[in-house]
């Protein structure tokens, strides 16, 4: 399976999470092709809301930065995993910035899914999504539910499924690797 791993490490150095991601990567590489992206170290700009990816250069974001390689990887992957510390109760802004750039992966045209407006597919298939979070000191169940519900919405728009959602505090690397291998 082709896996894209997007690590939204924040500016605050977190050796525990860095080491976790490194070990997870090694564990996944035993059986899968893994492309890892350390988002904090990459040049990824904010979406500009220009819509060129919908109406001028369909499917292609015009911003020439490191996001291009991430988007290519995701579209070709079978499974895309976001790993992020929770900061102020949500994934890091690095994860959010790259997610905003996913918009060109769908068409501007609207369809109804579950009775709601959503965007039509551009590609024939989309990778399953996974989210692994590291809790903050004040994280509670409400925070986890809020984030999970937002990701459940995201997968509707991206014609995908949320196949994994957990915190690193709640599971082990071995269990995560096993869960992903059974996808």
């Amino acid at each position: 399976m082709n896996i894209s791993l997007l690590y939204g490490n924040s500016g605050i150095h977190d050796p525990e999470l860095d080491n976790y991601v490194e070990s997870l990567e090694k564990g996944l590489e035993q059986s899968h092709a893994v492309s890892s992206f350390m988002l904090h170290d990459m040049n990824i700009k904010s979406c500009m809301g220009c819509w060129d990816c919908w109406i001028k250069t369909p499917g292609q974001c015009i911003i020439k930065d490191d996001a291009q390689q991430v988007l290519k990887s995701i579209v070709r992957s079978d499974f895309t995993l976001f790993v992020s510390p929770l900061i102020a109760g949500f994934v890091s802004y690095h994860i959010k910035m790259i997610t905003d750039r996913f918009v060109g992966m769908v068409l501007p045209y609207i369809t109804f899914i579950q009775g709601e407006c959503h965007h039509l597919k551009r590609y024939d298939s989309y990778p399953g999504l996974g989210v692994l979070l590291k809790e903050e000191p004040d994280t509670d169940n409400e925070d986890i539910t809020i984030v999970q519900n937002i990701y459940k919405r995201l997968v509707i728009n991206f014609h995908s499924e949320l196949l994994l959602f957990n915190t690193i505090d709640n599971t082990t690397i071995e269990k995560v690797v096993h869960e992903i291998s059974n996808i």
Partner: protein
Amino acid sequence: MKLAIFNGSPRRKKSNSKILTEQFLRGYTEIPGNEYSVNYLMAANMQDMARIYQEADTIIIIFPLYTDCMPGIVKMFFEEINSLSDSSSKNIGFIVQSGFPEAIHSTFVEKYLEKFTRRMSGNYLGTVIKGGIEGIQEVPPGRNKKLFNAFFKLGYDFAKTGAFNEQVIQKLRKPYKLSVWLRAIIYVFYLFGATNFYWNKMLKQNKAYNDRYAQPYLVD
């Protein structure tokens, strides 16, 4: 009241968020004695934005729904102000606008915004949700009269009471979900090509219509 409005749209001064803010301020400035500032988060120095946040007693953050929650630049701002020590004397409200017509899309980030304000020990003023905002700059101004009047009233009442008018919020929040009838009507429009007209017109103007289904990220 010292109000700081933060516009979190990546389109900055060309944004629909700016237009809604202008209508809000049209009402807000009818009542004398209150201050306000409008601050754009896109390409801003976040420390400067945090300073403005700290100096205000009332905050409104307005942004378009981006992939089911806030744009990345708004999250960046949240992370910056999250590290500040004292928001307990601040009143914080939000306006979330989206292209999709239904309010339901924005109710998930709404839960985050309420929790975020609580986390900051701020006083949560609520979240105004308004769908169907895409295209408001492309229609004759008369078509937006009802919308603009609603935001005028929101701003006017906000200046008087320091709160969002709940009746206006409930009106703006419709439709929450599309009724079966509304979906049927939209489907009929779709069959006549009307729902895609907006996008196809721009694609044709850009000579990109033939490439509208392109899959560039599969091509090396």
